[in-house]
């Protein structure tokens, strides 16, 4: 933890910006560069920044859940995305899609998104577990 007013003030701003950007990257990943992994890394670095500015204990309060549980839930999302195809009678990991709207304004949502969200959470959980383990060590 660094005791710096400048860093703390900047972090308050940057945290929300970086999280917002990580969601953007996560959603954009379907058709363009991006995705759950890189999005997760950005979100994790936002939280890591918070932990450097305010200390690991503050980060635990912000996160609410244990990072390992976050990774676990993410993993569960990814498995669920794979198993969903069983309902449709297809092979494991076959994508299932829902479509809304007509013409050019069709909105697609499917199990690959759930899978990506899973990856997103696993990356956040895993990176933060490491970050917290390192930060809390030297207290």
């Amino acid at each position, binding site marked *: 933890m660094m005791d710096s007013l400048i860093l703390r003030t900047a972090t308050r701003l940057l945290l929300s910006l970086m999280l917002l950007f990580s969601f953007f990257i996560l959603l954009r990943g379907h058709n363009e560069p991006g995705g759950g992994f890189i999005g997760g890394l950005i979100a994790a670095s936002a939280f890591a920044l918070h932990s450097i500015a305010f200390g690991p204990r503050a980060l635990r309060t912000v996160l609410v859940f*244990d990072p*390992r*549980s976050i*990774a*676990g*839930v993410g*993993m*569960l999302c990814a*498995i669920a995305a*794979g*198993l969903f195809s*069983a309902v449709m*009678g*297809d*092979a*494991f*990991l*076959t*994508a299932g899609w829902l479509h809304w709207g007509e013409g050019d304004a069709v909105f697609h949502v499917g199990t690959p998104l759930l899978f990506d969200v899973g990856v997103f959470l696993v990356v956040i959980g895993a990176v933060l577990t490491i970050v917290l383990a390192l930060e809390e060590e030297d207290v």
Partner: protein
Amino acid sequence: MLSWYLVAPIAVPMTTAVLCILLATRRDLQRIVSAAGAGAHLVAALLLMAQVWQGGILAGQMGQWPAPFGITLVADHLSAVMVLITGIMGLGVGLYSLRDVDENRERSGFHPLYHVLLTGVTGSFITGDLFNLYVWFEVMLIASFALLALGSEKVQLDGAIKYAAINLVSTVMFLIAVAVLYGMTGTLNMADLAVRVPQVEQRGMMTTVAVMFMIAFGIKSAVFPLFFWLPASYHTPAVAVSAIFAGLLTKVGVYALVRTFTLIFTDDVGYTHDALLVVAGLTMLTGVLGAAAQNEIRRILSFHIISQIGYMIMGLALYTPLGLIGAVFYLVHHIIVKTNLFLVAGVAKRLTGSMDLKKIGGLYKSSPLLAVLFLIPALSLAGIPPLSGFWAKFVLIRASLEIESWVIAAVAILVGLLTMFSMTKIWVEAFWKPHPDGDDRSLSIGDLTVSERVLLIGPIVVFAALTVAIGLWTQPFLDLATRASAELLNPAGYIDAVLGARP
């Protein structure tokens, strides 16, 4: 829908691992989920085995991407029997771990890691794609690093560093070989590779790639001269961990060797398989001689893993139907026997306080049941009839005599004798000799609590019974090995199952 038979043995331990992570704070519930998950894994493995036994080679395309573009999961008889044995060991050692692994290690994540390890091992056996195999190797390795270091004792970290360093070398070698192979053929689907590799014009380069795979998998399976990481690390973690490592991890390397050197690299058999034969002989000898110099039970057993790996490689290197039958049979027999010996060693430590042969003794007097349970796998390991090890060695030696490889046959027999020597040493020191601190220092099995008796001794009894069953009722197991060997020597069935019948 048949492809779900292939997915289940991977998805079940993966889901179990996740549930164990989420239940990290609820210790009792986590233990129940862990044991139930191991049971479900065994059921999934049994279903897969039954399906393959009846319907032949089973292939499934994940995400319905057709081969060779997507990831294919394939189970032939070899894969299915390896998954089944993984399921059996996973449940047995999983139950044993409930009384063996301490609370501190459980809190650091033993149960999730254990199931991640099973996921990686099972995935390696079922995948039909070389890069996917690499990924499963990684899953398995990451879990094994963590399991090895769990508890953070000094000797453990020492072992874990050696283990991690050499395995990373192997991983890099594997990855480079995969990249080069992809550059030469444009595919990594194993069935597709089997079709395309013979068409490649640079034969010399292909042999080089084959040798790179041989080195990468050789390190994983601890063959001569790349075995030193194994005895440096296997005696350090909790008994349940070293038992599952001893049973399964090196065997994944052997499986990968068998798979690639029967399916893909069969062009230059005169070079590659002769090299394997030399390696096999040296592995057997160095392993068994190394064991003779040791005085700690788990270290002796670790060196014996190495020498036994030599037998499996020998079966592959002979590259005859009988040789491969022997290799498959040996794989199955050895996993059961070796895991069991480690479990017995764990109980011996609990009863006498140590695994150092100089500090213990008197077990035969205090608990004759444990003595019998030790003798069964120990004699089987040395190849005494009518136990499973006798048939495994018999088939292999006969295979080598048939093609007049006298030297390797002689080495195999000699190593069997030397194995007997090591087992006798453990027997005399740990069981016969009185305890150096006086007669009453060894506890008997009766002194354990009921739950300890069920969870620690139960799996040992079942594994010992399996060893005897394979020995006395060999035919079905030989039939299975024969089918597996026939499929390995004639890959057309495998290729057709994956790529679809071609004109």
